């Protein structure tokens, strides 16, 4: 039945095949107000089961988290301007970097792209009215909110000073509000699992008839691969943090050295989640970047199959490499060898993606728009971040680099550089679809430049700091490290300015922007075939797509 040739394989025969006989569907109204206007009142938002509205709720939640985490980042950078105390004392500084990490990882980067854009676009992209379990979807948002509240209560209750990694036995013996924050992260994890479960089942069961796996938009594939990791890795995090929590509160020390416990085993459990978690953050960004590249170059991906295989490959191999966080932790030399070798395979899948994106540009007809500038920034940050990942996965090189600013710079390049630029690209790319309005390209360009350059100047100096040996989480440092720290702080302020500009002009565009049509970018992907903003039930009539998501050589629908 599904004999559709994957979009990358030319020359394609004429495009018959999507549904022939009409589905026995529900009668849909021929015209419907868009989802913003369909229902009114606060209640209709807070109790909505519409995946698009839930996406908007997630956008609000994650954006607030980004602001909060960003404020902590700026405070950290200000403190590090001088080698001794600048604005706060040592234990406050420890609370700042811990909450910066916790908020950015679990409240921003992990939920942001799946929660916002996955929720909003995945059902549309597969021709479904909604996700498979709409109420569970709403529940996952509220669980997210509860988790966030717990995490913030920890902040108010005195804060946590363990670092986001919660290494035992420090985390079980410190006198800070570990209990609250561990509960918070556990609950955030539940939200993540529920989202992932929903996406997996949705993709499996709700694809419109005739839409085969190999015709799915690549964003869907990436969200799907992400969901697998969310569902399978997050419980292990939940368990290990629960053990830390009960140890901290009731002294049930399963890792306590005094009772024969082994703190390294906690690190195994923690990284079994937290390494794949990196791919929870970056895979959705890969999906966004793929859509952006194809839409603005008006070109199908060089190889659809390669991108799919690479996404699934990353999701799988990402589980096999957690030990490279523990080369100097006291892990066996044998495990160091095995995990070191396996880590190299993840790099290969990422390289396949990078080559495919670059080659997709070739022969295209490229529109310059804000997302393309973010794409350019992403490519540099991701490739250098990724290569520095290969470097730190090389066991002997990791010995000097481990727990220094080199690692900090590496994971900010790859995770934040990847996820933040991916998020901003997605925000601009889909802004017309979500709001029905256009933003100012000029301001978009200015802020993209500020974000990319600010990012570069924040973290490039940190690579050199790491080379010089400055350990991470240092409150004071020898004076020879100062000039690089000042440079980094300067970069961070440019980055912050860029983000403030972004928020401002996008807010203006929401109310004043010119109306966007159905398809301002002339993309072929499925979500651009519904009105902007989409109606409440996504489609005015049962969709009948005659061409694929990347058929840039077929007639436009």
């Amino acid at each position: 039945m599904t004999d559709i040739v994957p979009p990358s394989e030319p020359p394609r025969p004429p495009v018959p095949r999507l549904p022939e006989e009409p589905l026995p569907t529900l009668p849909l109204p021929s015209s419907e107000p868009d989802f913003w206007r369909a229902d009114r009142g606060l209640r209709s938002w807070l109790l909505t089961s519409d995946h698009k509205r839930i996406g908007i709720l997630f956008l609000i939640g994650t954006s607030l988290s980004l602001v909060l985490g960003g404020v902590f980042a700026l405070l950290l950078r200000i403190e590090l301007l001088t080698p001794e105390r600048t604005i706060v004392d040592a234990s406050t500084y420890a609370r700042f970097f811990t909450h910066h990490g916790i908020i950015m990882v679990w409240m921003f980067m992990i939920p942001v792209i799946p929660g916002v854009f996955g929720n909003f676009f995945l059902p549309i992209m597969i021709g479904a009215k909604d996700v498979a379990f709409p109420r569970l979807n709403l529940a996952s948002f509220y669980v997210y909110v509860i988790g966030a509240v717990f995490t913030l209560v920890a902040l108010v209750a005195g804060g946590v000073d363990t670092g986001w990694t919660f290494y035992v036995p420090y985390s079980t013996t410190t006198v800070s509000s570990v209990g609250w924050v561990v509960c918070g992260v556990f609950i955030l994890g539940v939200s993540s699992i529920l989202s992932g479960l929903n996406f997996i089942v949705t993709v499996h069961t709700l694809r419109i008839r005739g839409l085969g796996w190999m015709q799915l938009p690549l964003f869907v594939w990436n969200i799907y691969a992400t969901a697998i990791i969310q569902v399978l890795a997050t419980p292990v995090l939940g368990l290990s943090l629960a053990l830390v929590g009960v140890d901290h509160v009731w002294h049930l020390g399963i890792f306590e050295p005094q009772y024969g416990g082994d703190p390294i085993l906690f690190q195994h459990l923690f990284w079994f989640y937290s390494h794949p978690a990196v791919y929870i953050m970056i895979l959705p960004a890969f999906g966004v970047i793929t859509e952006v590249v194809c839409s603005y170059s008006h070109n199908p991906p060089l190889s659809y199959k390669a991108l799919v295989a690479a996404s699934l490959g990353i999701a799988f191999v990402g589980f096999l490499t957690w030990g490279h966080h523990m080369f100097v932790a006291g892990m066996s030399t044998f495990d160091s060898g095995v995990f070191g070798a396996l880590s190299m395979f993840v790099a290969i899948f990422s390289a396949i993606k990078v080559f495919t994106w670059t080659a997709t540009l070739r022969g295209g007809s490229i529109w310059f728009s804000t997302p393309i500038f973010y794409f350019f920034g992403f490519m540099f940050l991701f490739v250098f971040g990724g290569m520095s990942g290969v470097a730190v996965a090389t066991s002997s090189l990791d010995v000097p680099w481990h727990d220094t600013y080199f690692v900090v710079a590496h994971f900010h390049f790859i995770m934040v550089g990847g996820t933040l630029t991916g998020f901003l690209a997605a925000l601009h790319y889909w802004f017309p679809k979500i709001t029905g309005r256009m933003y100012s390209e000029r301001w978009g360009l200015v802020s993209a430049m500020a974000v990319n350059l600010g990012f570069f100047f924040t973290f490039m100096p940190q690579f050199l700091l790491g080379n010089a040996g400055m350990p991470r989480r240092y409150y004071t440092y020898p004076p020879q490290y100062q000039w690089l720290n000042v440079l980094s702080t300067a970069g961070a302020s440019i980055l912050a300015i860029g983000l403030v500009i972004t928020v401002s002009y996008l807010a203006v565009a929401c109310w004043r922007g010119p109306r966007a049509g159905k398809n301002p970018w002339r993309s072929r992907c499925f979500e651009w075939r519904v009105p902007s903003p989409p109606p409440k039930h996504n489609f005015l009539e049962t969709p009948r797509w005659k061409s694929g998501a990347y058929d840039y050589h077929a007639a436009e629908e």
Partner: protein
Amino acid sequence: MAPPLSEHVNEIGGSSGRALAGALLVLVVLTATSWALANVQLGAWNLVVALGIAVVKAGTVAFVFMELSHASTAARVVAGVTLFFILLLCLGIVGDAALR
């Protein structure tokens, strides 16, 4: 007539009564065997044998009681992947703890 779905589903039917009873018998016999073998000195093999029997028992429960044999391919993949990741976690940890 059910309208066609996007995914081929063959979740029709389930384990027959006979299969259920047979599975129960197998499980009881294996449990008894495992218990009996626990009191035989086999050295390090005791644990291996006991876990081997446990795997067979879990497989019986999964395929007959949980009707994995009638479940969709996706469900089977989920079960397989889960099993793989448990083994992975345990092996990774043992590779460290036993060889330090």
